[in-house]
């Protein structure tokens, strides 16, 4: 019983710790997530293939951060990063794939 109680307590502590970090993103979390998204979008710019949705999502993330909603800001930054990475993948794969559409 003693072991079971200890295990239960440990689990509860871990769960609490986990939920706390999931609920409250900090400004530092936002800055890190935003920088990662910006870096990916910069790579897309180098490939001349940015998406309008990446720019819009980055702007939304900044707006959320400005209003102090860092949870939302981090989520939006991560979404922007995913969009930017998809645009990089598109540009890279299309270097050869465009030939599939060519009229011959």
């Amino acid at each position, binding site marked *: 019983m003693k072991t079971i109680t200890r295990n239960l307590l440990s689990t509860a502590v871990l769960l609490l710790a986990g939920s706390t970090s999931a609920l409250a993103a900090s400004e530092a979390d936002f800055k890190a997530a935003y920088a990662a998204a910006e870096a990916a979008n910069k790579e897309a710019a180098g490939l*001349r*293939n*940015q*998406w*309008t*949705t990446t*720019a819009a999502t980055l702007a939304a993330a900044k707006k959320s951060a400005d209003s102090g909603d860092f949870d939302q800001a981090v989520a939006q930054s991560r979404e922007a990063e995913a*969009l930017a990475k*998809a*645009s990089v993948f*598109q*540009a890279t794969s*299309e270097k050869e*794939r*465009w*030939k599939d*559409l*060519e*009229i*011959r």
Partner: protein
Amino acid sequence: MSPRKAISLVSAALALAFAAPSAIAADTPNPMADAKAFQKFFTTKFPKLKLEDFVNGPYSMNEDLYKQWQEKEQFPPYEFALEAGKEMFATPFKNGKTYGDCFPNQGIGIRQNYPYFDDKEGKVITLELALNRCREANGEPPFSYVKDEMASLTAYMAFTSRGKPFDIKIPDDPRALQAYQKGKEYFYTRRGQLNFSCATCHVQEPGERIRAEVLAPALGIMNALPIYRSEWSGMGTTSRRLVTCNSQTRAVPINPQDEEYRDLEYYLSYMSNGLPISGPGARP
């Protein structure tokens, strides 16, 4: 050397000799063959259309739209731009020179030769770029590539070329071939979050609707520019058309007259060689 070994060596040599040229041919741009295949694709897809009908874009795609186009042409919406362009073209710059002084044949009836490859600069020169260069050479500020003044000027110049077949030249210069090839790549490359290439709409789906619009075939698409678009409630240049296409696929457009757009215009215009200039046009 044994006879078997000799036969193997000869066979290998023959196989290499035949394989090598075809490998080179596949990667070497062949604009003439491309244009032939391009035009055949569309004439096969739309067997009832005459080649010159393709310059009417969506209006050539079905009978109702064709009737609409005929009615529109009675009082064409681009007429104001045409008049403005004619006046602008004839009005001297502050230094007394005119646009005509910058172009062969005083700029009349030459639209079908643009874009061209300039061998001194090693790049494609479009009509819009040439017009702004003319302005700057005469001490005038350049016009926006996407606004009314440029649309009016190119409308007038296109009008003076109406009926003349596109006559785009690709000189025997590796840089010109490279520009052509880059334009082709741009045309077929998917971009934007919607993952569309120019060809997705204008090769795979001409005549089909995308929301309320009927998509134009890529063949002849440059011949009608600039255009009055009801959707825009105004005139649009080639630059405006390309920028809009990009943003509609959720791609961030590049700057008007950037190299990619000029090369794309070069490629697409070459594909329509032989088809008459019909600009300025009107589109839904």
